[in-house]
């Protein structure tokens, strides 16, 4: 027996439809709503337009240097030299022309020492901060949970994230460079400063990732009679490895772009120094140093170094984002 339910009218009258479309709103309320939405779009443009303009000017002023082969392999010219009078610029020196990769030019411009120095300090910092940070996070999430020590460490990590990078530099300067005098300035000192900056970021991002690992996995492993440390190493860490990698890469990217803590603990060189001891230089330090030196040539060197640095940081950031997106999906 099927009682036919009378189809309820879902039709609304023309007045109602008009009201639902917002037609009966007073003009003032409607206008305010539109103005507010418009302002939000403007707010986004206020942030996006400078980003695009800045990107364009870095690329347009840095690409000639970066595209030449000698940029990546040759020492940094000393801008004070008389054969590099400040009124010369890169195109006068034969840069940017296809026939010349810097070889026949009387002056060979390069940034190799800074590129090597950047990689060295960042790798050193990563080697210090990432294992320590992961161990810290494992303690926080697998052992400490919510006891007072874990809470305290978590709080300190949050506070340390907010410590200005220049203060970290001053700290390393006082404990490492001052006692050693001039010899104290080295890639190692810079790596220490960057490691201090990276550590809290690695700890917090790793802990977030460990939180995403389902407890079922830990319980299954524990049910087989496994110790907590073995569960952590064999089950939890492999499950979270993608997220941990991406968080660590973001920390590395941030460290690579840091200038303030590096400049006064690393010294200055114009030739490649591939060791942790002795003065060194990084891309960020070069950008600042060349800007301070002044002159057209130094300006071109600074823009080239800026583009190189942006490429490195952007590549790290994009790789990290890709890894984390894959992690989200799986």
């Amino acid at each position, binding site marked *: 027996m099927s009682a036919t339910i009378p189809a309820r009218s879902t039709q609304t009258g023309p007045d109602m439809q008009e009201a639902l479309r917002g037609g009966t709103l007073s003009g003032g309320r409607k206008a*305010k*709503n539109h*103005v*507010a*939405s418009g302002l*939000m*779009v*403007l*707010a*986004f443009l206020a*942030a*996006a337009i*400078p*980003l695009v*303009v*800045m990107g364009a*000017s*870095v690329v347009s002023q840095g690409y000639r240097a970066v595209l030449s082969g000698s940029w990546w392999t040759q020492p940094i010219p000393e801008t004070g030299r008389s054969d590099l009078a400040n009124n010369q610029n890169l195109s006068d020196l034969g840069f940017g022309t296809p026939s010349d990769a810097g070889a026949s030019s009387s002056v060979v411009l390069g940034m190799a020492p800074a590129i090597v120095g950047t990689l060295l300090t960042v790798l050193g910092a990563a080697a210090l901060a990432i294992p*320590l940070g992961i161990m*810290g996070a494992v303690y926080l999430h697998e052992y400490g949970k919510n006891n007072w020590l874990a809470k*305290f*460490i978590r*709080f*300190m*990590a*949050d*506070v*340390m*994230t*907010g*410590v*200005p*990078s*220049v*203060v970290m530099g*001053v*700290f390393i*300067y*006082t*404990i490492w460079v*001052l006692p050693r005098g001039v010899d104290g300035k080295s890639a190692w000192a810079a790596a220490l400063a960057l490691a201090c900056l990276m*550590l809290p970021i690695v*700890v917090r991002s790793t802990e977030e990732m460990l939180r995403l690992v389902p407890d079922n996995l830990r319980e299954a492993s524990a049910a087989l009679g496994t110790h907590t440390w073995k569960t952590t190493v064999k089950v939890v860490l492999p499950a979270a490895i993608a997220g941990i990698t991406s968080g660590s890469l973001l920390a590395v990217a941030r460290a*690579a*772009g*840091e*200038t*303030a803590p590096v*400049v*006064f603990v690393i010294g200055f060189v114009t030739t490649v120094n591939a060791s942790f001891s002795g003065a060194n230089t990084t891309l*960020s330090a070069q*950008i*600042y140093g060349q*800007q301070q030196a002044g002159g057209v040539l130094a300006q071109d060197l*600074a823009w080239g170094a*800026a583009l190189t*640095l*942006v490429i490195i*940081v*952007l590549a790290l950031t994009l790789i990290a984002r890709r890894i984390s997106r894959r992690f989200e999906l799986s």
Partner: protein
Amino acid sequence: MLLVLALILVTMIRQAWPAWSELGASYFFGTEWIPSQGKYGILPLVYGTLVVSLIALVFAVPISIGISLFVTEVAPEWLRRPVVTTVDLLAAVPSVVFGLWAFYNLLPGFQAVFNNIASAVSSIPVLNVVFGPSTGSSFMSAGLILALMITPIITSVTREVFLTVPENDKSGALALGATRWEMIRGVVFPHSFGGMTGAVMLGLGRAMGETVAVALVIGAVPQISLNLFGVGETMPAQIFRQLSEAGSTLRSALIGLGVVLLVLTILVNISARRAVVAVDRRFKGAP
């Protein structure tokens, strides 16, 4: 790792002690910072730091809140991820690159604009002091660059906060006939007030510690001046500029400056965390 912060404080205070004990109150309350004449009063630097950070907040906070609202309430679904990515990219740019760009490409334009404003208000009292003549490098230039740099952090925190506003409350307001803007004012803002305060404090902490970009565009003249278009100097910029070649008294004074900066930023950050945590408690239940 929990020892690091304590270690930082202890070693830095030990290095700063000579300056503090020698200069005493004139260090903390002196209004002149002229190392070549042996004057180490940090007030001009503290003043510069605060002014620049406040300018940055004045510009960055409305922009960040606008972007967050756009992303959470207004923008169509397909547009949200690109907007978030763009703002995140802004956070990825190293600060020295911001500084370089601002120094070469923005300062000439800033100088022209500032001087136009200055001549337009030159006959109005108060305004003609605050907006005086400019050489490009100024509190205002540094504040504007900083605003751009702290926008990503404020945006990401306010976005998280807006996402915690209960969907039911929002639908309820809309069902009562509120326009989207009225819903945002009536529901989203009251719910998010604490979180927004936290976001602003976090941004302030960032702005106070930012070094290189500010150092390049502020002009390096420590002075307490009401002219926002005039040159100035901040604490981190002064440390950054002077520390590597400093003699013993100046070095000790600079390290002391580092301690002051550290304490200030820690206070700001702790109060920011407090505000954000309080919001979490209220809307997600106690952890």
